């Protein structure tokens, strides 16, 4: 059932259109990520939902109620800001209590709910500290507790993990998901980090230049990107430009005369296309075996896997293989490359950068 709905929402700043015609329906309890490079309009979209930016056009409704023009303090949404935006002159407990105070919650109930919220983010013993006495990860948790304590119908997270170091970031990803599962609050997160979006969301909304270009579950987004930009932005991929050929029942991509069998029923023959193949879907065989010949230009050891750069007649390809314990093909050696035709993704049009 649609809980939060955006209908044709746009935002113009002067002559610049930051967000263009975004329509989105989010169900109760869902965790949705807005993913895109910086400047794609994802943060503006979030701010419009929060009421910090007023849409130029369109309608936003929450649980059947139109909130498009409602002031942020009347919406009752929980927002976690990128900078955390903690109040520096208040203690952790005072920060968390602020929203309850604004709602005139009685003192006794306030104390209880603050204690519960701090317990939820595992900061019970830090209640009387000031934000400057906390680490980055702890500040993050305070910000989440402050947003959740008012029991908001929707939780909005603006790049919540971008100020944390790599290790803490991974930890907080799971922490975020744990908290969200436990509380069951509908959550929208803005991020530019595809791994973050894929790992914790129920659905991912990809945005490019102010537009929504794909809305899908993480694994579908990864396996069936709708355009070349998404296929290279979400995960690593090899993009090869070619032309679509069809010959009766069989079809293939023609790349400089080499035909690679693939299927894409909806594309007309003769169309320029981009072929996308993920590095982990390519298998490294002995020279002579497989569909394509190449030689190893460089190889990098990443612990759990090997990453090869292989020069082929089709161009340079990146290939990754799991570390099986043995010595893989050396730099300079010839290898054969193989794959299952079902793993080739054919996208109409040419990629801007291959």
């Amino acid at each position: 059932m649609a809980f939060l709905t955006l209908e044709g929402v746009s935002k113009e700043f002067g002559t610049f259109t930051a967000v263009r015609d975004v329509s989105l329906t989010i169900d109760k309890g869902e965790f949705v990520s807005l993913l895109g490079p910086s400047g794609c309009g994802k943060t503006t979209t979030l701010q419009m939902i929060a009421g910090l930016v007023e849409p130029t056009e369109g309608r936003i409704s929450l649980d059947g109620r139109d909130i498009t023009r409602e002031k942020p303090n009347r919406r009752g949404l929980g927002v976690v800001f990128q900078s955390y935006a903690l109040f520096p002159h208040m203690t952790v407990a005072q920060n968390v209590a602020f929203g309850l105070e604004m709602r005139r919650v009685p003192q006794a109930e306030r104390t209880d709910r603050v204690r519960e919220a701090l317990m939820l983010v595992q900061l019970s013993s830090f209640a009387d500290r000031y934000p400057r006495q906390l680490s980055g990860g702890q500040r993050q948790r305070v910000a989440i507790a402050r947003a959740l304590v008012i029991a908001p119908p929707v939780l909005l997270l603006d790049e919540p993990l971008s100020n944390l170091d790599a290790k803490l970031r991974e930890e907080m990803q799971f922490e975020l998901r744990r908290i969200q599962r436990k509380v069951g609050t509908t959550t929208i997160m803005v991020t530019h980090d595809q791994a973050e979006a894929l790992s914790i969301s129920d659905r991912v909304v990809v945005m490019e230049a102010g537009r929504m270009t794909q809305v899908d579950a993480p694994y579908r987004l990864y396996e069936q990107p709708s355009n070349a930009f998404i296929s290279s932005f979400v995960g690593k991929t090899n993009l090869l430009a070619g032309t679509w050929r069809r010959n009766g029942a069989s079809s293939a991509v023609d790349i400089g005369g080499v035909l690679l069998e693939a299927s894409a029923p909806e594309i007309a023959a003769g169309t320029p296309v981009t072929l996308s193949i993920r590095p982990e879907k390519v298998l490294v065989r002995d020279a002579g075996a497989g569909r394509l010949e190449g030689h190893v230009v460089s190889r990098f050891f990443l612990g759990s896997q090997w990453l090869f750069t292989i020069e082929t007649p089709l161009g340079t390809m990146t290939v990754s293989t799991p570390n099986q314990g043995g010595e893989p093909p050396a730099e300079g050696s010839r290898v054969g490359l193989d794959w299952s035709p079902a793993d080739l993704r054919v996208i109409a049009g040419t990629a801007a950068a291959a």
Partner: protein
Amino acid sequence: MQKNGPVALIFHVLVLTFVLAPLVIICLVAFTPENTLSLPTTGLSLRWFKAVFEHPDFMASFWNSIWLATLSATLAVAFAVPAALAISRYTFPGRDFLNALFLSPLIIPHLVLGVAFLRLFALLGATGSFAWLVATHIIVVTPYVLRLVLAALSGLDRSAEQAARTLGAGEWTAFRRITAPMILPGITGGWLLAFINSFDELTMSIFVTSPATVTLPVRMYMYATESIDPMMAAVSALMIAITAAAMLVLDRTFGLDRILVGQR
């Protein structure tokens, strides 16, 4: 980090001597037991400080200056804080003009301000009242407050205020509970800087004070042009002490080097 050579250190000591010499000599002469301006060679005496406290004109001027500085610094804050909010938070036609207008007393010589006020008050028939004196001092010290509050606002993370709004605070509550406490050091620093500047002001005041409203610097100037005795040194030493105390507070609240150097 490179070190300074001996030549540099000697130069540094000479500069320090030059900077401190007139202040040190005042503080020494203030304690002389003699009747003339001389260094206390035979012993220290507080007689000239006593003379200051028993001098009705100096005491009247001292309290006059304290009231003047307190009032004008406070009213300058009342003008500057909302003005700073308007200038830093909104884009509107005339914003640059307003900013320039509020800061203009910094680039108009005080002498020119003095004669301009004199002309205005002469036409209004308002010369000599304390209220008008306060008004002129507000003009002179408001830019200092405005600059510090603007700096505090520009260094402020707006999202804290937005967070308060999303948590249910109205605009006024968000300002009172979040923004104001966060820019309080800037306001305090601005008030103190305004107080000191008003308390020290001579060139403009000399044109707009009347016998009933003579400020301490003007009184000292008049006294110094007529007679010179160690009482002048005692008053000066007291002023140095007051300024130093204010500087200390200023340094604690905002960082003096930040106020004097780092204003952008």
